[in-house]
């Protein structure tokens, strides 16, 4: 636990250790809302995680209500049932990639379309709209232009509001049709739906890219995975532990005085939980900077958060990543970067980070 100045110049407590991060995630006295939002420390200019959100009085109940509504749609069982279809999508995209002459942009050909296809089918969003909502999702993560990011967030919510209206008239077997009948206001459901559409693909794209880069940078690990596909689950957990595309933490605000890691956090103060740091805590993960798919860490890494705030899409992401890393290197055993890794261009102005392109050859 360390005091830091945020990007916005305010003060916050930085949670960098694993055990402290778990405590912070699990403590109900730390929330996304702040007791005095007008005086709350700002984290950054991001419209998504730049400051407090919601109301202290209602946050806990609202969060529990939202999870009750959404958990069945994203249950591990339902996601596992989705597995064979995800595998078909992976195979189809790789078939098309194989038909192209290398070098190919892996992000454009594979790591972006896969999560977009999956989330479109799961939610019931037209895949033909992908260019439109991808543009909005990109703009929402803009750290350099808050006005642009805010406008994109509002526009994406308007888009999901229209889709939900259509689902009420013509329901289908998808999550948005289920959501359209929820006992909540249209604005609330549309905002929730926009959040699912955004978070349901944006982060997985980068995890695929980073996983590929980690494998290519560690050929012995890639070879071990090709030789023994039963290592896939462990490989995915190790990728999730080490892949850190966005250089940002998750903000919380103390609703009352809280002690975390022996430090007293006063009511109203900001806390930033840095999972990329917690996942490299040498007290939990020996030699934390070594990419090792033979680690037996189970689902110990904190990339999906912990406790009541555990990511609702974790099972979906795991289904996709397992399918990707079961297949990609078996199908393309000679896959290699077509440019030196230092020539990859980072999306530095984006909250979710990642790279603009991943040129590969084989």
């Amino acid at each position, binding site marked *: 636990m*360390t005091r830091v100045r945020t990007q916005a110049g305010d003060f916050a407590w930085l949670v*960098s250790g694993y055990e402290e991060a778990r405590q912070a995630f699990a403590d109900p006295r730390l929330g996304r809302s702040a007791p005095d939002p007008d005086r709350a420390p700002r984290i950054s200019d991001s419209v998504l995680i730049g400051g407090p959100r919601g109301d202290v009085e209602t946050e806990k109940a609202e969060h529990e209500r939202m999870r009750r509504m959404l958990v069945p749609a994203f249950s591990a069982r339902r996601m596992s049932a989705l597995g064979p279809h995800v595998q078909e999508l992976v195979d189809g995209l790789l078939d098309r990639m194989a038909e192209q002459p290398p070098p190919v942009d892996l992000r454009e050909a594979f790591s972006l379309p896969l999560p977009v296809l999956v989330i479109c089918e799961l939610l019931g969003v037209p895949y033909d709209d992908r260019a439109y909502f991808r543009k909005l999702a990109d703009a929402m993560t803009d750290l350099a232009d808050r006005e642009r990011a805010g406008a994109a967030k509002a526009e994406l919510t308007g888009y999901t509001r229209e889709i939900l209206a259509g689902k009420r008239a013509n329901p289908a077997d998808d999550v948005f049709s289920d959501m359209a009948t929820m006992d909540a206001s249209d604005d609330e459901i549309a905002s929730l739906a926009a959040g699912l559409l955004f978070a349901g693909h944006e982060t997985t794209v980068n995890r695929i890219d980073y996983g590929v880069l980690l494998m290519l940078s560690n050929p012995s690990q890639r070879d071990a995975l090709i030789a023994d596909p039963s290592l896939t689950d462990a490989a995915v957990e190790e990728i999730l532990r080490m892949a850190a595309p966005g250089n940002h933490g998750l903000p919380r605000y103390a609703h009352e005085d809280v002690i975390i890691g022996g430090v007293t956090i006063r009511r109203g103060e900001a806390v*930033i939980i840095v999972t990329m*740091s917690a996942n490299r805590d040498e007290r939990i993960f020996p030699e934390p900077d070594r990419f090792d798919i033979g680690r037996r860490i189970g689902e*110990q890494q904190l990339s999906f958060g912990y406790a009541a705030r555990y990511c609702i899409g974790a099972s979906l992401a795991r289904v996709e990543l397992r399918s990707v890393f079961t297949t990609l290197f078996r199908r393309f055993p000679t896959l290699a970067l077509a440019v030196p890794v230092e020539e990859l261009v980072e999306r530095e102005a984006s909250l979710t980070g990642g790279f603009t392109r991943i040129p590969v050859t084989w």
Partner: protein
Amino acid sequence: MDDRIADHSTDQSDPADLPRLPFERSNPLDVPEMYRTLRTTAGDPGPHPGG
């Protein structure tokens, strides 16, 4: 902002001395080195029971 620091009973750090986010990293596949420094200097809660 300064009031919050001055009022804080457990820390009287000069704001200018505090590390400022975001921390830089030399390689996008790594995490900023500053986090390691902070983990090893910001108190030791002891080993995790799960090892």
